[in-house]
């Protein structure tokens, strides 16, 4: 390793965004090619993270640490472990696809669009790499600004409402976390160092309060029931690239927050609260799935399916066993690939028909056969068909869920059944039956679009058959996490009482 990989991967897109902002607005081709070049370059620079990663250790790797604001004990500290490294790669990959899918569909204020996209990328990667809570918060919040613009400027008809709702929901959660962060800081001997926090034991009552403070921010991002209402609006109204980033990476940051902060820093509170979290997860799974059945809008349906799928993720995480957590992480990656793919596909057809209503489609498979085949792969992966990546993730999560609590496992399984129902029914309505005149006469996918979707198709199948490639990354880190959660002090009387009350 000869260069600071993580800093490069974070700041290359940010510098690129400034560069694009300085370009002349009329030179669209230059702007687009710069954005593409930068996103591809960032991806290639992030590849060493994948190749040189040491899978045998749970320690942070590729670390960088400098003093930043010494008087506050704030460091510029970066590093990745088995939990975060895959998200960095997913972010750099999805950004390229976001650039290519937007190539012709973004015509207004192109310059600002690509600048915002690259800014978002840098901030997202920063979130996954930060080892200093202050730095983490900076990235976490900073990302809101470009994301707000992405949804609000280039989104659908109801975009302004969706963008403001997204911003306010996330902001309220985040500022509550900020209070939690400061309290944590004062109780860690004035340090924002995450690794130091992971080795500190906090009083149980404090842990409990902090758990809910962090919950406020992470649950909104995931989004968990009942704070999920921003998601359908934001996903539906965002432009394709915005939806892909939202579904692919942004909402993973919430679950990642649980894994990186809530669990190792507040292990006893996590253990005490895991039943509550599992109940909320199962509600999200079933509720999200049932709502999907009633949707008439393509993007909205996929958005609600995200609520359901992220319910699986949090269920796995809070099952607090190896299968559950590994499944949860894997499913986050899977969901990023599959839902990212589905949104890309919807974007591709939307560019042609300019409608998102399911009723406006029908017989698409006759008119666009290649497109239909690509869509099929993602549909099946979303259902969790064996051979696709979705199966591995959901299987592990259910395994973990059953081990932790049988009723939860059973209830969660029903979510898969409803999931199959809404996805297949969607596929039937859009691709089969009589050809709708609105679909008639459109050309099939072109080379650029195939190039955009195929990497994700390959990933779906690859992870479906060789999940161990990804699972091997997280083994050590997950084991370490579970040790931390399960060995830290026994639950006290108070916790038991609180659980009784909540039950």
């Amino acid at each position, binding site marked *: 390793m000869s260069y600071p990989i993580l800093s490069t991967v974070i700041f290359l897109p940010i510098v690129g965004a400034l560069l694009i902002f300085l370009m002349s607005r009329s030179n669209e081709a230059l702007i687009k090619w710069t954005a593409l070049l930068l996103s591809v370059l960032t991806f290639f620079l992030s590849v060493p993270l994948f190749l040189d990663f040491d899978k045998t250790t749970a320690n942070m790797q590729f670390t960088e640490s400098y003093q930043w604001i010494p008087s506050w004990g704030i460091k510029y500290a970066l590093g990745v472990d088995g939990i975060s490294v895959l998200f960095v790669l997913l972010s750099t990959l999805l950004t390229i696809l976001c650039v290519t899918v937007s190539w012709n569909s973004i015509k207004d204020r192109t310059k600002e669009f690509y600048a915002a996209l690259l800014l978002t990328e840098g901030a997202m990667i920063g979130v996954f790499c930060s080892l200093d809570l202050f730095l983490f918060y900076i990235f976490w919040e900073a990302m809101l600004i470009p994301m707000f613009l992405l949804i609000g400027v280039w989104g659908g008809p109801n975009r302004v409402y969706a963008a403001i709702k997204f911003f306010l929901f996330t902001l309220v959660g985040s*500022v509550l976390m900020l209070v939690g962060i400061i309290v944590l800081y004062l109780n860690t001997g004035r340090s924002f160092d995450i690794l130091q926090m992971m080795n500190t034991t906090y009083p149980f009552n404090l842990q409990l309060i902090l758990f809910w403070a962090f919950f406020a921010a992470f649950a909104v991002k995931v989004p968990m029931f009942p704070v999920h209402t921003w998601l359908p609006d934001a996903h539906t109204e965002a432009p394709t690239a915005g939806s892909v980033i939202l579904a692919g990476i942004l909402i993973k940051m919430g679950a990642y927050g649980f894994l990186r902060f809530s669990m190792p820093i507040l292990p006893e509170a996590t253990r005490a609260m895991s039943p509550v979290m599992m109940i909320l997860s199962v509600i999200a799974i079933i509720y999200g799935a049932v709502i999907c059945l009633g949707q008439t809008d393509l993007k909205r349906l996929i958005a609600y399916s995200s609520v359901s799928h992220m319910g699986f993720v949090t269920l796995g995480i809070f099952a607090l066993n190896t299968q559950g957590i590994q499944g949860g992480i894997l499913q986050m990656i899977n969901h990023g690939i599959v839902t990212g793919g589905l949104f890309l596909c919807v974007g591709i057809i939307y560019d042609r028909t300019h409608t998102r209503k399911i009723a406006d489609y029908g017989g698409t498979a006759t008119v666009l056969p290649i497109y239909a085949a690509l869509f099929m792969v993602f549909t099946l992966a979303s259902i969790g068909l064996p051979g696709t990546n979705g199966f591995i993730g959901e299987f592990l999560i259910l395994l973990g869920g059953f081990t932790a609590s049988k009723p939860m496992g059973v209830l969660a399984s029903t979510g898969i059944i409803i999931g199959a129902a809404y996805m297949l029914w969607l596929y039937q309505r859009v691709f089969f039956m009589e050809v709708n005149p609105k679909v008639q006469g459109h050309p099939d996918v072109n080379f650029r679009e195939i190039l955009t979707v195929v990497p994700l198709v390959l990933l779906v199948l690859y992870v479906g058959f060789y999940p161990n490639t990804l699972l091997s990354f997280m083994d050590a880190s997950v084991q370490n996490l579970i040790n931390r959660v399960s060995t830290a002090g026994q639950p006290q009387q108070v916790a038991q009482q609180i659980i009784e009350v909540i039950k």
Partner: protein
Amino acid sequence: MNIPFPDLTPATPEIIMTIAATVLLILDLLFKEKGVLAFLTISVAAVTLYTLPMSAGETFGGMFISDTYSTYFKLIFLINIILTVLISLKYIKRQQADYGEYYSLMLFSTVGMMLMASARDFIILYLGLELMALSTYVLAGIKRHDIKSNEAAIKYFLLGAFSSALLLYGISLLYGATTTTDFTKIAAQLQQTGSTPLLTLAMILIAVAFSFKIAAVPFHMWAPDVYEGAPTSVTAFMSVGPKAAGFAVIGRVFFSAFQNMQADWTSVLIGIAILTMAVGNILAIAQTNIKRMLAYSSIAHAGYMLLGIIAGTEEGRQAMMTYMMIYAFMNMGAFAIVILLDKGEEISDYEGLSKSRPLVAALMLVFMFSLTGIPPTAGFIGKFNIFMALIRAGYVWLAIVAVIFSAISAYYYLRVVRNMYMKEMTAEAAINPTPTLSLALAISVAMVFVIGIVPSVIPFIKLV
């Protein structure tokens, strides 16, 4: 009785400014082109800035003190006057208020603020306050032919006079109880007597008078009307200078004279702070005029800064000072954009700005997000600092109240961003760029980012 001639070194900055202001009044008769006066004003402020570090010490029998605390606030006042002059050059000409007195009054007002920051005696404090206030009343009404400007001046004057009266009443009660107006002697007296109802009444009256100056609720009624009516450059000046001066004296008086009554003044200020944040933020949502919106926003920001005082620690006071400096830059920036845009003062006039003027829109976006407190802008550092001091002092609940209001504030700042980026253009935006205005904008936006990313550039940003 032989009174020795006082040592004037600590008061050098004030003396320079006073002489300059007087000379400027005379020069006004010689120059037709008032731009010369503007550059003289900036040069004087720069010279004063240079003499600041050399002025440490106390004089006039301890009534006047120049320490790091006062020097820091004087730095803010001088930044305030420099930026204001930079943004007003062409603007006041357009507004037909291009009088030489404009600059002279601004200098006098700044001298008043500087006296307030340096006061260690209620008499000096009152002198400074009146000098500042009277100059500002005239500035608010400097558009002589504009009825709204006149209204603003009268309103400001009446309510200001009212608050001065309250202050005097408080001081006289305090003098009656302690037979002194010197902060340190009052503190020593209070140490012995403890708080009595009379002292509490005096303290409340003084707190109310200061609340008028910083436009804290329920003594904020003047602010929106005056901000709207006054020329925008004066509004920018008023929204930073007198507020900073008010906080300077609050930080001085409550931390020295009323040190032993902390429990009493904390309970008064907590109520004021919560009300201020609530009313400022909630009423700002309903505004359609950008100047009124910024007026309510500045009320809300006073609420956050009060939290630093409430923390009651040195750390809290420094957090307030840091916030004031940050607020000066981001607020000046926002007002500079308002001046730059000649289109109008309604928030709806910003519709589609990002299409016609992408750079202007991007700058306004930065200032709006900074006022909201989103990293990596300076606004976040200011709020973070305040909340940290507050939580450390044990007021977690108050910090939660504050962050919730801070989240609410996002709504009205975002509305400006929404109009600029997400609405269609109604008419081509006309802008009036001048080199000086661009310079002020460049300074403001640079500081917003520099402080946001490297907060240690602000002196005082450290924990004890």
